[in-house]
């Protein structure tokens, strides 16, 4: 079966490369052909960008495309669609929805964004209060979403709404795809402490969403949203950076700008270097274990460790700069950065940007709950918001 899968993949790759030489075909045209050959999401059904084979072939396909001079940049440019939306559509969408949205998503002709978090629903996402009220075949949406990467470029949004406030919070949610260009949808830049607007706020004021854009059943929005968030983890994973790269490179560079004669700073630098390298080794270990199907706790500790270490190391790098650490050479420019500025080359910006590492994608507090409860098997806390109608639970 595995050799059979290999043969099918090889066959399609050969055909794709023959008809659309990766190095010479315009990007979007190539991605369209890649989709048509079932090499976009290789585990998806045939006709929907896949071949119905094991997902592990995808990384090999991507490597081969890059080796042949092609691009896989669509995966980054439309990360929320390709990485998270597609899997959600496959799991919960109708075939019509899948046919409508998957191909232009993969070619990046239509960019996607995610509309989950709200000012009042961060860690407690299921408490969200953006409402969708049915009027015949349409839903009328009101409320506010926040932390929406790419929303200003997106054609489509993955939206979770509250459709029934009279049941416990997880039970009253419904999931939609929303047209970001529809009337009543207002996207505003959200400036962050770096002076950049990597994220947006999205306001809904009587925005209309046709019922045919609903994903999953009414009231099933939470499980659809969970599918999206599961896909997030898969989308992010991948290669482990080389030794000495990332935040520690900033600290080493800052150290090399000093007279390199302070043993106290050197000791701290080395302590961080050690921790960064140990975390890198852990990521390799987690990758090996995941490949062998024997994932251990090391996979779960990495995000938490990375967030806290990143913050500590970039802050230390600024300290190493001494008086220059009081400056912000790039200035606060109030612009939108190219993509996310998480991996910035500017140590000052990296320092400020890293503050969000322990907030975005699950705060460190939530990650510790997860580690404590799911990995260490510790009991949960008494819950005051279970089995209570959403409208009766206190909210801020």
């Amino acid at each position, binding site marked *: 079966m595995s050799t059979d899968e290999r043969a099918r993949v090889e066959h399609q790759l050969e055909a794709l490369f023959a008809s659309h030489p990766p190095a010479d075909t315009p990007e979007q045209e190539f991605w369209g052909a890649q989709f048509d050959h079932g090499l976009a999401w290789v585990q998806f059904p045939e006709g929907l960008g896949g071949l119905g084979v094991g997902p592990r072939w995808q990384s090999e396909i991507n490597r081969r495309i890059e080796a042949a001079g092609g691009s896989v940049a669509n995966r980054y440019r439309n990360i929320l669609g390709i990485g998270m939306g597609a899997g959600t559509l496959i799991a919960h969408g109708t075939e019509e929805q899948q046919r409508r949205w998957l191909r232009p998503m993969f070619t990046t002709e239509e960019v996607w964004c995610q509309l989950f978090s709200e000012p*009042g629903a961060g*860690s*407690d996402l299921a408490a969200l209060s953006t409402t969708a009220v049915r009027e015949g075949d349409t839903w009328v949406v009101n409320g506010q979403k926040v932390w929406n990467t790419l929303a200003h470029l997106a054609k489509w949004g993955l939206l979770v709404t509250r459709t029934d406030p009279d049941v416990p919070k997880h039970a009253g949610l419904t999931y939609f795809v929303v047209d970001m260009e529809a009337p009543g949808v207002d996207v505003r830049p959200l*400036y962050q*402490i770096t002076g950049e607007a990597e994220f947006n706020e999205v306001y809904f004021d009587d925005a209309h969403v046709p019922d045919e854009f609903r994903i999953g059943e009414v009231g099933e929005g939470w499980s659809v949203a969970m599918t999206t968030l599961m896909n997030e983890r898969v989308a992010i994973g991948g290669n482990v950076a080389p030794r000495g790269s990332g935040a520690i490179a900033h600290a080493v560079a800052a150290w090399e700008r000093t007279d390199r004669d302070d043993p106290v700073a050197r000791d701290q630098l080395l302590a961080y270097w050690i921790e960064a390298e140990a975390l890198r080794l852990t990521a390799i270990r987690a990758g090996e274990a995941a490949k062998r199907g024997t994932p251990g706790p090391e996979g779960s500790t990495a995000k938490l460790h990375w967030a806290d270490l990143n913050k500590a190391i970039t802050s230390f790098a600024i300290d190493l*700069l001494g*008086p220059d650490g*009081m*400056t912000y050479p790039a200035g606060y420019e109030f612009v939108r950065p190219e993509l996310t500025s998480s991996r910035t080359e500017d140590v000052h910006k990296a320092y400020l940007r890293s503050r969000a590492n322990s*907030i975005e994608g699950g705060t460190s507090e939530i990650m510790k709950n997860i580690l404590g409860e799911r990995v260490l098997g510790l009991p949960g806390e008494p819950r005051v918001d279970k089995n209570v109608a959403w409208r009766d639970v206190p909210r801020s």
Partner: protein
Amino acid sequence: MTTDTQRPATAVTFVETDEQRQLREMLRDFLGARATSERVREVMQTDTALDDAAWKELGEYGLLGLTIAEEHGGAGSSFVELAIVIEEAGKRLLPAPLLSSAVLGTTALQVGASAEQQARWLPDVATGASRLALAHLDERGRMTADPGVTATRDGDGWVLEGAAGYVVDGHTADLLVTAATSEDGLQLFVVPAEAAGLARESLPTLDLTRPLASIRYDGVRVPEDDRLAGEAVTALHDAVAAGIVAIACEQVGGAQQVLHLTTGYARERIQFGRAIGSFQSVKHRLAEDLVKLEAARSAALHAARAVAAGDREEIAIAAPLAKALCSEVYEAIAADGIQLHGGIGFTWEHDAHLYFKRAKATKLLLGDPHLHRRLLGDVLGL
């Protein structure tokens, strides 16, 4: 450890007089009304980043010359009163040159200038009509290095050449108290900002509420009368010591305000049907911050009292101690301020980042904690 450091610190006391309490309350009201978040943000994005209106009012209330003798138009109060102003201003991130003019510059003149010179400059400083800044670092901003400016005798006066870096409020000061090396060693000169040959450039700062400037001296001529007549090394040393203590007091004010804001948020922000402050992860972090804050406050208050008492032996311990500790405490509490506010704490519109940046900038200003620990160790003989 030498026996000197074992002596019981004679004057350890924290009792606040009624007048001091009233001063603090007055400032709390005044700054609460004037240095609002909106106003601070408005000012910090101007070129000068100086709240002129608030500055004038502070001058009218006599708060800019608190430590200046009454004969020079000041209030003749002590450094403890000045520290209260600084602490309260730190709570509100008031963009005003208190540190540069009322502390660094004023102390340098009080210690280094002759009576005649003090009479000439201090009255305007006390009213706020004239703002001082201290230019004593080289362009790399190092404390231990010689200043980046040299002074050469030229007839009856002097010519200054070179550059000074990281001058706090240097771009809005009227008089730059400039440290320069001459054949006779270190000298301090009072140089008008508009002097020929003097050029100022603002630095892009991490903390927009506290501007920094580079000053270039290109053949700036200074008359002998404007060279401080006293001991320049002592004057500079005392000015920096007072500055360090003032920063520590400012840091305590800022840290207290962040903790206040964050605690309030934790009481009101509800997730999972509960105020987040009811979760131990949040509650205990804030409790730990309170522990740190109270230690920092003790250190800063004591250092301010040592400066007020003019107890050089105790200042040598208390000042670096306060700066090292308060810097780290402010930074930790301000970082928690962002984290515990969650996403909103990472936005430009929320004030958490303003404190976070002020904390980092003051940590690195006039020597980082590591330097101050080293200085303290030298004093203690450890």
